[in-house]
């Protein structure tokens, strides 16, 4: 039992966390990745709830939490946990037509 606790602590310690505070009217800021909301939680002494998101890419364990600050309501705090193991969606969207063209051209060479 104790071993499990230790391993989970180690896992948490390994995942780097970055927090970004941005002045924005919209809660969800575009970061180039696709996210799936998996939870929401009301926070003590805060009017705004905290939303939990997970990266939609298969085998990518990156999570993010989004919450508007109660003291400064114009600021949205986005906390990321982990590092993506794939390129961002926008990059792939721009690359896929190019790759298709290259594959098509390779038939003639």
């Amino acid at each position, binding site marked *: 039992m104790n071993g499990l606790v230790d391993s989970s602590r180690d896992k*948490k*310690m*390994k*995942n*780097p*966390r*970055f*927090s*970004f*505070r*941005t*002045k*924005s009217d919209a809660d969800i*800021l*575009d*970061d*180039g990745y696709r996210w799936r909301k998996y939870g929401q939680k009301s926070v003590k002494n805060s009017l705004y709830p905290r939303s939990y998101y997970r990266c939609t890419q298969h085998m990518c364990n*990156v999570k993010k939490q989004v919450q508007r600050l109660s003291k400064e309501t114009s600021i949205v*705090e*986005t*906390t*990321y*946990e*982990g*590092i*993506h*193991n*794939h*390129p*961002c969606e926008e*990059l*792939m969207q721009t*690359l896929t037509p*190019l*790759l298709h063209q*290259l594959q098509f*051209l*390779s038939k003639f*060479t």
Partner: protein
Amino acid sequence: MEATSQQFMSQSYLNAQETTTRATKNYLTSLHSTRKQPSKPLKRPAISSPLNPMHPHVYRVEPVNFKVLVQRLTGAPEHETVQAKPLKTSDDAAKQSSSSFAFDPSSSWGDFSFQNPANISRW
């Protein structure tokens, strides 16, 4: 005189016997007793490290720079990103047809290092 000394002797003997029986009783009870675990587990001191998950590094970002900074910090490293393999050109095809044996460095066995038999260790 003798009577008093005998009385003291018997008294001390009884006291000694009582203490020995008490000791054996305590020993026997300790054998049969079960050790109770503490109700609450001992709390370990919190590990203070630069990557403490409870206190992430906070960045104040403008909405314009948000995407760039997020991708720089949480994005996949450059070597892990998907890269398109270079396509074979007509020049490469001509080279391959001209030579009977074309050594392709991108092939699976191309990076195999040929070892000197003297260097290979025996099992």
